[in-house]
């Protein structure tokens, strides 16, 4: 096919599209690349450095005796593959780099189950790095919350403040931002307990519907791409009222919940 190129992945020749992100090629070819700051709905960020692989460019032709090879480490999440690239994802140098990034994050957040579990799964069970604060931090600065709020939800209510080791996720003046629509997408994507949003209703919907918080009318097909703006407090929501009128009380989704539950919608999250 036009745009198809050949690359070498862990010693094996595979076909890819020119400038396709390496991580997509790996997924297709069954090569596991661990990631922490990546999400398929978001632009790749390249911050955690856990997805590092080694790439070597070979300029070898049968006719030419001189072969020039350079290699360096690149992040698989956003590296655009080119013809002739040679990738190694599991050599000891790559694993060492990967593990040290994980070790650093584990040291930073030693009490976060998500981090501890991820680290263990990649061979890191202890860390020489001290915690970010005496109690241990809960944020690995992956930026998923900031980016989903910016790119998918469009509210842009979160950002980063300060530089270097002082970097932290922040809102304007560290107050609840006006532009926040309370959809909970940040909390849904957060790999640790750093981003916390609300209570049971949200938990149920999250469990059932994955990462991005669809408004239930989106689930019903009324409201394509709609994100919940009300922490799933549907009782007070004008979107709910509008569609309830359209759908009618006899619609299955309302039938599924006992009347007593509907009153609970008004409780604070």
């Amino acid at each position, binding site marked *: 096919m036009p745009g198809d190129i050949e690359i070498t992945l862990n010693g094996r020749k595979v076909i890819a599209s020119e400038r396709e992100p390496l991580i997509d090629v790996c997924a297709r070819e069954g090569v596991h690349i661990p990631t922490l700051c990546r999400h398929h709905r978001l632009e790749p960020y*390249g*911050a*955690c*450095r*856990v997805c*590092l692989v080694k790439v070597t460019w070979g300029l070898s032709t049968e006719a030419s005796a001189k072969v020039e090879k350079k290699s*360096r*480490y*690149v*992040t698989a999440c*956003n*590296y*655009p593959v080119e013809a002739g690239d040679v990738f190694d994802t599991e050599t000891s*140098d790559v694993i*060492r*780099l990967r593990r*040290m*990034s994980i070790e*650093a*994050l584990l*040291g*930073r957040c030693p009490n976060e189950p998500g981090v501890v579990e991820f680290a263990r799964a990649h061979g890191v069970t202890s860390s*020489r*790095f*001290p915690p970010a604060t005496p109690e241990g931090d809960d944020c690995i*600065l992956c*930026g998923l919350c900031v980016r989903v709020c910016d790119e998918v939800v469009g509210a842009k209510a979160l*950002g*980063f403040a*300060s*530089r*270097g*080791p*002082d*970097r932290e996720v922040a809102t304007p003046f560290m107050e609840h931002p006006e532009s926040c629509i309370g959809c909970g997408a940040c909390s849904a994507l957060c790999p640790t307990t750093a981003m916390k949003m609300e209570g049971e209703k949200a938990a149920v919907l999250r469990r059932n519907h994955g990462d991005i918080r669809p408004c239930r009318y989106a689930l019903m097909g009324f409201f394509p791409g709609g994100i919940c703006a009300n922490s799933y407090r549907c009782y007070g929501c004008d979107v709910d009222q509008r569609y309830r009128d359209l759908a009618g009380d006899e619609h299955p989704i309302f039938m599924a919940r006992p009347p007593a539950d509907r009153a609970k919608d008004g409780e604070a999250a």
Partner: protein
Amino acid sequence: MKATSRDHLAEIAREIAESYGRFKTTISVCGGTGCQASGCRSVRHALEAELKKRNLTDIVRLLVTGCHGFCQQGPLILIRPGDILYCKVQPDWVPRIVEETVIHGRTIDNFLYRDPVSMIRIEKEQDIPFYAVQSKLILGDNTCLDPTDIRDYIALGGYQALAKALFDLDPEEIIEIIQASRLRGRGGGGFPTGRKWASALKAPGDHKWVICNADEGDPGAFMDESILEGNPHLVLEGMIIGARAICADAPVGSTELAKVGGFVYVRNEYPLALERISEAINQAREWGFLGKNILGSGFDFDIRINRGGGAFVCGESTALIASLEGKPGEPRAKYIHTVEHGYHSEPTVLNNVETWANVPGIIRHGPAKYRELGTEGSPGTKIFSLVGKVQNTGLVEIPMGTSLRRLVEDIGGGVPEKKTFKAVQTGGPSGGCLPESLLDLPVDFDALTEAGSMMGSGGIIVMDSDTCMVDVARYFVRFLESESCGKCTPCREGLREMDRILTRITEGRGESGDPAYLVELARWMEGGSLCALGTTAANPVLSTLKHFSDEYTTHITDRKCPAGVCRELTEYYVVEENCTGCTLCAKVCPTGAASGESKKAHSIDTLLCIKCNECYKACKFDAIGRCR
């Protein structure tokens, strides 16, 4: 007054040069930031007053210029004809200078530079060793022009390279010349400039950008500052030529040129440089070198200034561009090249101030002439800020390939005050420290990198035996730690961890595994970081571990600091055989720790000693010791 065509420009240049003919003498006063600090303003006022008093303003030209380079000896006055240089000028010398030198042509010996070794007074600027070894391709005109007056630049041939580029050459030819010159980026990366421009020309897009990186963040570096303060039009001319070079015709067959816009991104901490470049841009617009239909060529181009917000990381090209776009200054992966997708995803050429400053000369005199100086792989000259424990601190310009020894000893005059040379730090926070044994290495893009340092943007810091190399490593780590954007794990966490380890070593709590752990951290940061700040951050640590490993061992195993810098590891004591009992130490001691009888050997009570270092500084007999 607009220069409406090439011929018009030539005519104007002639007229201006002729008008200067009425001056019999020119007094050039250095007005660079260094000399401002030494008091050149009062010298200038004194000269203005004296010349007015004696009715000489019609035949004597008083020129306040940018940096002459000899910062240690400022305030500086250069008198032409004759090239007589007076150093450390006091305002009250001025009447005598005007009377004897300006009017009667007699040199005043006491005001001249005196060589510290031979003790001989040297009259002419070019005979002083500091200057004699230099090749001032870029900085040379600093002493001849007023940076606030575009006419001086025009009179010296300014903007004629631009005329050649606009009328004699097409974009491909301009790029061929730059490629033939083998000019490499002067900001530290050393990327071939011609190749960068060629990629940008080829990149599709009907709006392109040229950016001048004037964010100069390395501590102690002031090369770019001095170019902008001393000869801002040189940079502008380079940028306009560059803009023309990447400006392809828009759609095929169209007679419309693609639009090009320009930025100069100046760090906010350079108020004088900002003033100069702003004024230069205004004047360039007035005279028709910026704006629409430049010199009647049909080419439009203009430049805007952007001030930095105080972040070292914004000197990194992708972070700079993010900052220009109004976003936080965070770098992004360079797998997507900025020449194809840079500012607002449009083709962008970003070059350093000194790189742009090299361009007009190359166009004017040709690539072959340019390659006469320097080395095969690194042609041309490089400007360095030579600072630290060296006699002649200042700004120097030398051909690439000159040895470090020449820089430190011949130009710098060596380490002063009978101390011994210990190390030279090159390349700023991304570079490393090299010992005496490597001083014969040539300074260029490649040789220093092989030795574990790098030339970088041109900062050279000389260190003597009073410098602790572990402390130096920690200084650079702390600098980078506070300047790191914090986005990627290895740089952010690696620098924090290196700081922790180095701090405990300097406080006497180092552990035997620390050097190996530091190397492990370094390799991780080098391989894993997102941008060059992170990948080079470990160089100061790695180079000091390599070349000064015994100092680390002394700190860790013996818990001592040989240089006497690390307070917890320093114990002050009197070297009895040297002590004359002058009581000076007792007089300066704030706690009474140092005491003794007059003319008898003194002693220091370590329980009272707060290690303020005053006794060490005061003692003239080398009788205070700091590391047993």
